[in-house]
Structure formats: structure tokens, C-alpha cells
């Protein structure tokens, strides 16, 4: 589970947080522009000027809607990239990586290195595409530069101890001969499972090369999984095709409403990969706990706050799009307070007046 792994590279973790904060800032700036326009409209007595300001307000509102959409996509893609990075680190530094270094089977080593190289290539491609999206966006130059710098940091990944891993003497766990041969037997099927996941990533990479559609990458990686907890029969009904179309058309909005209720908070995709890898090493959770205790970097408090911020952002966006600017304003203020609590001082105060 990603949230349990401690990453030694604080610069990387800060880059991820900073990007999200910068994107939130952009929303705040756009909101402030709208607020300023609203104030001008309210105080303007000349009807002709007032009308022009209203037209400008309408355009700014459309810009904000587009910006929100772009930012939501960017945040999701950054989270995908972050997750791939952490899986990569997880595999190389904490789990299979250590066992691979100890194996004498060259074929396994070669297959593993090839698989890791594929992941690296996917990471690079995703980073490039994210940077291009930012470059093409309407964000102000200052914000673009800040975000691009953080993207570069994330692209390098949190791997800073590759040299240490290459030297088996530095590995803390002493693996006995018996455990080694047992792990090698278990390694091949587990490597197959990892390779399946990596093939999936390779397909996504090809998809990126074909049409650069990052949304399709996200969807392929995130196949939402639900587990039935009873054997009871599922309720079913018949609908006409036109009714089905309307239900399907409602999906995005309904998903946003459901997300705003926190229905997907902490959802872990790629859980199957984790479960498979979990079976490879014995006493894995104990090792993890030791690492957590040694580094003292559990950071759960900060990650809970970040999840809260993300949930609040979704709700605020929904309120704003439905014209409930007062409620959106309250949530933006809450987001600002949470950001300050986890050490970010660059989220500005915002004022939003009624959209109309």
C-alpha cells in the first residue's frame, strides 16, 4: 500500500504537494478576477459600460470553467504519475528489488531490468505530456514556471538510493540460503504478475504515442473495482434504450456528487498488484513497520489533510458550477486553512461574490 511507504526524497514529496497548491492558486486567481469584475458591475452606473463588463464577466466565467476542467485533468494525471513513481520505488527499493539483487539467475535479472526500463519510459512520456499540457494552457507565466520545475522533480522520481541497492552488503535483512531458494521459486510467478501489470503500462504508453490522450491512460490504469460482500441477488430492472442513454449521460455529474460525499476517499487501485507482491516476501509488514519506525516519517496526518483538501475541492467546484458561490467560498476558505496547516503559505485569501 503506497501510503505506508516512506520516501527518503522529501524534495519529491514537496514537489507533488507544491504542484497541487500551485494549481489551486490558479483557481483562486481566476476567482478573484471574477470577483473584481462583479464589484465593478455593481458600482458602475453607466448602462453601456455595465453591459460590456457583464459580457467580459461571462467570458471570464467560461475561462474559469475551462481552467477548472484542465486543472482537474492535470491533478489526476499527476496523481497517476506519482503513483507509478511510488510503485516503481516500492518494487526496486523495498520488495522485489532486494531479492532480485540477491538472485543468481541472470534471466530473472534481465527480465526485471527490462520491465523497470519500460516503467521508466512510461514515466518520462507521461511527464512530457503533462508539461506540454501546461505549456499550452492559459495559466500565467509565473505559475507555469513554478509547476514545470516541480514536474521536473517528480519526473526524476523519488529514487535516490540506486547506488546503495546495487551493493548487497548494504541490504539490512540477512536472507538465509533456505529463504533465498524459496524466494527464487516464488519469484517467477510473482514476476509474471508484475510483468502483466507492466505490459498494461506498456500498452498505455503505446496509447500515448498514438493519440496522446492522457484521459484514456488514466481510465486504463484505474479500472474501478468493487467487491461483493454477500451472495444475495442484485436488484435489476429493464430500461428502454433512450432511458439508458439519459442515465449514461448523467454519469459524470453523478460521479462528481458521489465523490463529493467522499465515496472514493482513500481508494486504492492496482490493489491486485500489491496483493500479489505482498505474498512474495515473508514478514513484509514487519519490515515495513521497521522502516516506518526508523525513518519516523509516517506523515499520515499530512496525507489525511491532503485527501480532505482534494474532497473539498471537488465539492467547491460543484457548488460553484451550480451558482452556490457562498458555499463555494466557505469551502475555499477551509481549503486555505488546511493548506496553511500543512505548511503551505502561498494560498491566497479569496473573495467571491455572487456569480450573477
Amino acid at each position: 500500500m503506497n501510503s505506508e511507504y516512506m520516501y527518503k526524497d522529501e524534495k519529491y514529496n514537496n514537489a507533488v504537494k507544491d504542484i497541487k497548491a500551485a494549481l489551486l492558486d490558479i483557481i483562486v486567481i481566476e476567482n478573484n478576477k471574477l470577483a473584481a469584475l462583479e464589484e465593478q458591475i455593481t458600482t458602475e452606473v453607466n448602462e453601456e459600460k455595465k453591459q460590456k463588463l457583464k459580457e467580459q464577466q461571462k467570458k471570464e466565467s467560461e475561462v474559469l470553467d475551462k481552467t477548472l476542467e484542465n486543472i482537474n485533468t492535470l491533478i489526476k494525471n499527476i496523481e497517476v504519475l506519482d503513483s507509478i513513481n511510488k510503485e516503481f520505488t516500492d518494487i526496486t527499493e523495498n520488495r522485489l528489488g532486494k531479492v532480485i539483487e540477491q538472485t543468481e539467475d541472470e534471466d530473472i535479472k534481465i527480465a526485471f531490468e527490462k520491465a523497470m526500463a519500460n516503467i521508466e519510459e512510461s514515466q518520462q512520456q507521461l511527464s512530457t505530456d503533462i508539461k506540454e499540457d501546461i505549456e499550452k494552457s492559459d495559466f500565467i507565466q509565473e505559475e507555469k514556471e513554478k509547476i514545470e520545475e516541480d514536474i521536473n522533480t517528480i519526473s526524476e522520481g523519488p529514487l535516490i538510493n540506486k547506488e546503495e541497492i546495487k551493493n548487497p552488503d548494504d541490504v539490512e535483512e540477512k536472507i538465509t540460503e533456505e529463504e533465498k531458494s524459496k524466494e527464487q521459486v516464488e519469484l517467477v510467478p510473482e514476476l509474471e504478475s508484475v510483468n502483466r501489470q507492466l505490459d498494461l503500462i506498456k500498452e498505455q504508453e503505446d496509447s500515448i504515442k498514438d493519440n496522446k490522450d492522457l484521459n484514456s491512460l488514466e481510465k486504463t490504469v484505474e479500472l474501478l473495482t468493487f467487491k461483493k460482500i454477500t451472495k444475495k441477488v442484485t436488484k435489476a430492472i429493464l430500461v428502454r434504450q433512450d432511458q439508458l442513454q439519459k442515465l449514461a449521460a448523467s454519469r459524470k455529474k453523478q460521479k462528481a456528487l458521489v465523490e463529493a460525499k467522499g465515496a472514493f476517499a482513500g481508494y486504492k487501485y492496482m490493489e491486485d498488484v500489491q496483493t500479489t507482491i505482498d505474498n512474495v516476501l515473508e514478514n513484509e509488514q514487519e519490515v515495513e513497520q521497521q522502516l516506518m519506525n526508523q525513518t519516523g516519517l509516517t506523515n499520515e496526518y499530512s496525507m489525511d489533510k491532503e485527501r480532505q483538501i482534494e474532497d473539498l475541492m471537488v465539492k467547491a467546484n460543484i457548488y460553484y458550477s451550480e451558482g452556490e458561490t457562498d458555499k463555494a467560498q466557505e469551502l475555499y476558505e477551509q481549503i486555505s486553512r488546511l493548506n496553511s496547516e500543512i505548511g503551505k503559505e502561498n494560498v491566497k485569501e479569496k473573495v467571491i461574490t455572487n456569480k450573477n
Partner: protein
Amino acid sequence: MDMEEKEMIQIIDYDGLKTEVELVTYLNSDDDKRQYIVYTKGEIKGETGDQVIYISRFINEDGVLKLEEIEDDAEWVDVQHLLKKIANAVD
């Protein structure tokens, strides 16, 4: 469903069997306390081409999405009401 982009989800049944199905939409109860998924397996019935859709309630337990089945009659009435509101909306 052709007009909207398809979204597939995975359902793991009680015995561990995994199935990919097509997600139609989500429902949120009027009191905001319950959330549902609506999905289809592509089953068409009858001459009019009506399609079967399935509805289950889902909860999030420690990041794992779990499906519970609707058993209460009152709840089922509410869910059908939610579906009708969307499915019969005037364009």
C-alpha cells in the same frame, strides 16, 4: 450505449470471481447517506430491445469499495424514484 464513452468497472463476486461490466451511472440518495452504482452486462430483452441494468449500494471501507444488495422495499422504491428522475428527464 454508443453516444457516451463507455466506462468499464470490475466486480469481484463473493466467491472471488472477477467480471468486467459497463458502468452506467451513480446514484446519490436524497438524504446523501447512500450511494449506488448502476451497471449493465449488455443483456437485451424482448423485441423492443430493452436493456437490463443492475443496481447495488456501495460503501467505502478503508479504501476498499464494497457492494451491498438492496433488500429493503422502501429503499428499492427510493432507488427506482432516483432512476426515474434521471431516465425520464425532459431534454
